[in-house]
């Protein structure tokens, strides 16, 4: 009975978490009219639809008319007009799903945004590891004056919300002339208190003997960090990677602040704004298609990491 209750609670939780994703996926497949009227079920009817913007763009001009007249002499202008109109409609009619996903790539340089996201998240993660591993190692395995105080400071840093320091950070970067650059997107996140904390907790489970053995084998302290601690910490690093990469891939707040003009530096969440309501109303379908495309790499990375995560745990045979 309690088993059923547990499953029920979990099911409700799962539904709450997944519902927005379902809506996103569903909207990314539907035509604008289906979205507005709330019809079409989960996948939409996929009835051919007319792309109004395409129609507007391909309004036949005088040159086209002249060319058509020359191609088929002896016909009235109305007939030629109707013919052209027919061709135009055929060219601008697509399935809603195709429409949404092609729009996602053509309306905004989505590939560029994805590349930016990749550059930024990977740079942040790599530098975070380069900083956090030696710091965590020093905080667990080295004895020095003030170690506990240093760790207390790290814990304190965990309590500071990003938004509180956003303004000073922005001003600092602006003074350095770094706004509108990759550096502005990366630098503020390179020292992760959470990363240091997480790695320290993990390193505490690494036996001191292992470190001593490495010293006896002739390794210096940095060699120990990269050759002994890093490989043993892979499971913890993957957990940290999941946190770090999702947080910065999805971050809208900070890129919105430091990337003000240059569209070439937009990260994927900034790219979503391109579909925000304009004069011709919001393009919900393409917007949701973009959102889906942005989310897919994260989900794929997570599934891959999850597999490695379990392998990593199985590998660690310390004792």
């Amino acid at each position, binding site marked *: 009975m309690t088993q059923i209750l547990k499953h029920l609670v979990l099911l409700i939780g799962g539904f709450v978490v997944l519902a927005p994703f379902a809506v996103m996926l569903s909207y990314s497949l539907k035509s604008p009219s289906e979205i507005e009227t709330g019809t079409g079920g989960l996948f939409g009817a996929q009835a051919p639809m007319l792309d109004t913007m395409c129609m507007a763009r391909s309004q036949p001009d005088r040159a086209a008319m002249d060319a058509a007249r020359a191609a088929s002499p002896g016909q009235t202008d109305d007939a030629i007009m109707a013919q052209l109109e027919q061709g135009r409609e055929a060219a601008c009619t697509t399935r809603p799903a195709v429409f949404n996903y092609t729009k996602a790539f053509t309306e905004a340089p989505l590939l560029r945004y994805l590349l930016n996201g990749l550059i930024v998240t990977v740079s942040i993660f790599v530098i975070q590891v380069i900083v956090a591993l030696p710091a965590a190692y020093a905080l667990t395995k080295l004895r020095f004056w003030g170690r506990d105080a240093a760790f207390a400071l790290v814990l304190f840093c965990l309590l500071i919300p990003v938004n509180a320091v956003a303004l000073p950070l922005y001003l600092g970067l602006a003074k350095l002339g770094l706004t509108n650059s990759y550096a502005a997107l990366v630098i503020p996140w390179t020292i992760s208190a959470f990363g240091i904390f997480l790695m320290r907790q993990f390193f505490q489970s690494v036996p001191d*003997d292992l470190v*001593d053995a490495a010293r*006896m084998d002739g390794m210096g302290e940095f060699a120990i960090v990269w050759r002994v601690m890093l490989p043993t910490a892979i499971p913890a690093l993957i957990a940290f990677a999941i946190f770090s990469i999702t947080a910065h891939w999805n971050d809208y707040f900070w890129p919105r602040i430091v990337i003000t003009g240059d569209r070439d530096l937009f990260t994927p969440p900034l790219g979503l704004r391109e579909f925000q309501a304009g004069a011709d109303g919001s393009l919900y379908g393409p917007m949701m298609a973009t959102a889906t495309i942005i989310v897919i790499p994260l989900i794929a990375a997570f599934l891959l990491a999850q597999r490695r995560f379990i392998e990593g745990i199985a590998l660690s*045979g310390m004792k």
Partner: protein
Amino acid sequence: MATVTLRGIQKSFKDAEILRGIDLDIAEGEFVSLVGPSGCGKSTLLRIIAGLEGATAGEVLLDGVSVSGMRAADRNLSMVFQSYALYPHLTVAENIAVPLRMRRLNRWQRLPLVGGFMGGAAARSIAADVQRAAEMLEIGPLLDRRPGEMSGGQRQRVALARALVRDPAAFLLDEPLSNLDAKLRAHTRTEITELHRKLGATFIYVTHDQVEAMTMSDRIAVMMGGEILQCDTPAQIYADPCDLRVAEFVGSPRINVIPAEADKDGRISIPGCPLPLRHTGRATLRLALRPEALFLTESSAKLRGKVAHVENMGHEFVVQIAVPELPDCLVLRTSAQAVVGDAVGIGFDPGRALIFDAMGGRCRNVTAQVFA
């Protein structure tokens, strides 16, 4: 191979004094055990020799040269840890190769992937040495496994192989057998002794198990309370301990301690029985007798008691006898069957008794005296 010399090593953590002035000379190729109960400072001493820990005072000399302030990595010592401390992410072969890679390859050759193309001759010599070490410890078939896939005994061998793959000045072993089961421990004991004989290297072996120390060492240093009480050959330590704590620590079953008195003429007696031994004057003494120095007898019994417990060891019996005059049971070895509850007499040769003063120091001024 090198001599290891300790001069006045002291170590304290905050207020606690762990080591109080250790002096020890270890000859080239000698097998010395540091033995003592847990908390006596033996592991700390080994770590100071290794350079993993700094001494508060005193110095360590390798081949007569002080290595104070030198990093563990530069002292050229090998260490085997109680937990084996193998790198869990490396295979056995890679584990054994680590000390060689760190010494023979330069920074660029050690880089993952790229380094493989630059090693050349050095990499080949490392592979050959790893093979040699693996053969010596008969772990050739395990070279591709990871530590997680091996038993304790196999990991133990890998740890030994990693220690001996390079020629260190000395081997430091920190309770390497304590994680093994009893049978394997006895077997590995012999193997380590053989290894020592084959390599002829200096071994410093830390253990809390006096049996290991007795069976393997050239010399045993018995440590207690941060001091070396006695450092001698196993035979000497067993037969001629200079401190009651040493006598009690070494030997199994434990040595029997009987309270004794010397009267004003120096005549020594134990409760209920005068002994033909003479001390210099009045004193409170303690008489220590190894279990094999006692025998069951009816005619020349010096003490009488009841059999409290019998352990059949197969080739002999270890008998505990409760003597009313004594606070503790006496333990003796005998080949004759004894029955629990029997009243028995216990005899011994007073010449085999070890006499200690009230402080536990050995009394060397006891002479045999024939009763007039």
